[in-house]
């Protein structure tokens, strides 16, 4: 495991550094999931998270690192959306090395999940980001609005339209499964 946050870290002149390291270590798994959900295969979620986190590090003295969850999520979401802006990134890779690292992940990757994932990837970027923060991160509309620099009505519209588009994309598949 990483030695981030371990005692004896030589970089103790600046107490913010230690707090920052602990925050990143504690939230990195969630942040990677958010990044993956938003960028799909158009960018590497590891690059997204690393870049977002380092952007915060450059200005670390501005923030309170005792409760950094919201700050880190906002940074990752913004970095993910920034990367997705034109010029469009080409497909990075269809390989998901981390998917085979957990037995549960392998089992979950069934046909329905694959179909739904495919449909989510087709959503407009902001729709997808809002939906991820709502259903995966369980954030309130107000928190999502702050993370995406939008208003609550805008967020409600994005989430509603994302769900309607997913319903439309999966309608044929769902009806087919019901008949079977």
């Amino acid at each position, binding site marked *: *495991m*990483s030695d*981030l946050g371990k005692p004896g870290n030589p*970089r103790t002149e*600046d107490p913010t*550094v230690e707090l*920052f*390291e602990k925050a*990143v*270590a504690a939230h*990195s*798994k*969630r942040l*990677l*999931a*958010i990044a*993956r*959900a938003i960028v799909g295969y158009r960018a590497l*979620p*590891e690059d997204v*998270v*690393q870049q977002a*986190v*380092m952007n915060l*590090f*450059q200005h670390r003295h501005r923030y309170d690192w005792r409760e950094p969850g919201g700050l880190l999520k906002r940074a990752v979401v913004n970095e993910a959306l920034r990367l997705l802006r034109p010029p469009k990134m080409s497909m990075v890779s269809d390989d998901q*090395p*981390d*998917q*085979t*690292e*957990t037995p*549960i*992940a392998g089992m*979950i*990757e069934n046909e*329905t*999940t694959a179909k*739904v*994932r495919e449909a*989510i990837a087709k959503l407009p970027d902001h729709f997808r980001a809002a*939906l*991820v923060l*709502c*259903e*995966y991160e369980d954030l*309130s*509309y107000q928190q999502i609005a702050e993370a995406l620099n939008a208003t609550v009505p805008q967020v*409600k519209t994005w*989430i*509603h339209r994302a*769900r*309607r588009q*997913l*319903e439309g994309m*999966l309608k044929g598949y769902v009806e087919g499964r019901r008949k079977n």
Partner: protein
Amino acid sequence: MSATDQDVEMIESYLDDELSSVQVDDLRRRLSNEPAMQSLMDDLRSERDARTSVWASYEPGNGSVERVLKGVRREMNRSLLLEKVTRTTRWAGSLAACVALGFVGGYLIRGAPAQPAPVDAPPSTPVATTAHPGDGAIVWNAGAAKDLSNPTRDANGYLVSFTDNQGNLIGSQRFKSLQEAREFMSDFQMRQQQHKQLQNSGVKLIAEEQF
């Protein structure tokens, strides 16, 4: 927007836990009274559950987390080193600027250093002398007389001679008594010292008093 869309939004907001208590009560009443609403609720819940498994599939394994943490640590070290170098460079630059300002300021306030006094006196010119007993008139150029000889006695009194830097005799003075000769020599040496002091301060003396 059709009623159905409004109902869908309301149910979705309910599932998102974004309804007020009044709205929740109203929805629950409708769900119990309207089977269509309950069916719609079931469909929306089912779609939500399908997405839940997708969100879970996005979660990374430990390897991915380790790679990110390693990369972040590497970048942090680089950033901290750069910050340290920048801080040191700024400090050294500020110090150098202060020292330079100090020198410039001191130079402007004090002005250019004074020219050092010449080490050797200019070559003497012969001076006319009088050697009449009791006659004390002497004229010499500033800095010309270098040395005095001890008074010498002859038939007419006591004689004091003047020589220049090169040891050339440039004048002499006769006195009736040894006392007068010695007083003169003492006086002369004092004047000589005063001349040197004036020379060192950059003042050039052309002629002394006549007596």
